[in-house]
């Protein structure tokens, strides 16, 4: 569910939705969401002073309250792999 929320928001925000990757790791009380986007889109989801990313985390936290879980969003910056 958290994964779907993040996927929807992030894919709507970026220019390259096909390159959005979201992974959900579920524990008993904690859920970790790992998110990666291509470099060109990083700024779009972080926003000025990190405000957009903060807002995304707030909504995720709200969804967590509803489901009685603590949800953590981690932005994964993949090292560029050379072809």
């Amino acid at each position: 569910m958290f994964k779907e929320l993040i996927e929807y928001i992030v894919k709507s925000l970026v220019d390259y939705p096909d390159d959005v990757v979201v992974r959900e790791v579920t524990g008993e009380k904690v859920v970790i969401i790992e998110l990666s986007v291509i470099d060109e889109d990083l700024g779009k989801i972080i926003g000025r002073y990190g405000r957009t990313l903060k807002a995304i985390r707030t909504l995720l936290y709200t969804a967590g309250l509803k489901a009685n879980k603590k949800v953590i969003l981690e932005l994964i910056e993949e090292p560029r792999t050379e072809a």
Partner: protein
Amino acid sequence: MQNYIEVEAETVEEAIDIALTELETTREDVNIIIINEPTKGILSFGAKPAKVRATLKEDITTSPETVLKEILTRIGIDGKVESDFIEGSLHLNMVTDSPALLIGKHGQTLDAMERILNCIINKSALAKKKVFVDTEGYRERREQSLVDLAHQVAAKVRRTRQDVILSPMSAKDRRIIHLALQGDDTVSTFSQGEGDMRRVVIASDDY
């Protein structure tokens, strides 16, 4: 939902032109990724065409109401979204069974929702239009309680001649305090601190 196509042609420009014709759109409404630059082989051997992928930008017909509803559903909250135009701006009101959850501490969740929604709907728009998000008349109640607070604290400052520093607030909330005391010539207001810790100071003007 496939919203992109891949096209091969002799040059990158040609491939883009074909893609735009296929998608019946213009250059401004697509993102182009060049997958292959063309390479010339010897005679026709080993020559590779140019390949591009054209992706349609976010569907412009996606309405703010729909986006907000989609987010709500994924948060796990059922309800509906009412819309209203006030002074030319779109105001969205969420009618759900969990208003407190959607408001958050001092409207934090409401503000987050508003920000994300505005980022999404204004992503590809040239003329940005702000959309306001509210539930259960929270915005108005918050404004009223801030105005009341401003007047109470101003009275205390007048009485004690001691400046009072309010707790940290969002820019929107600080603005309400400043405006509430604008016409009061016994006190003045200013803000201090940075970022999330910025606070309004109500200072005595009467010396």
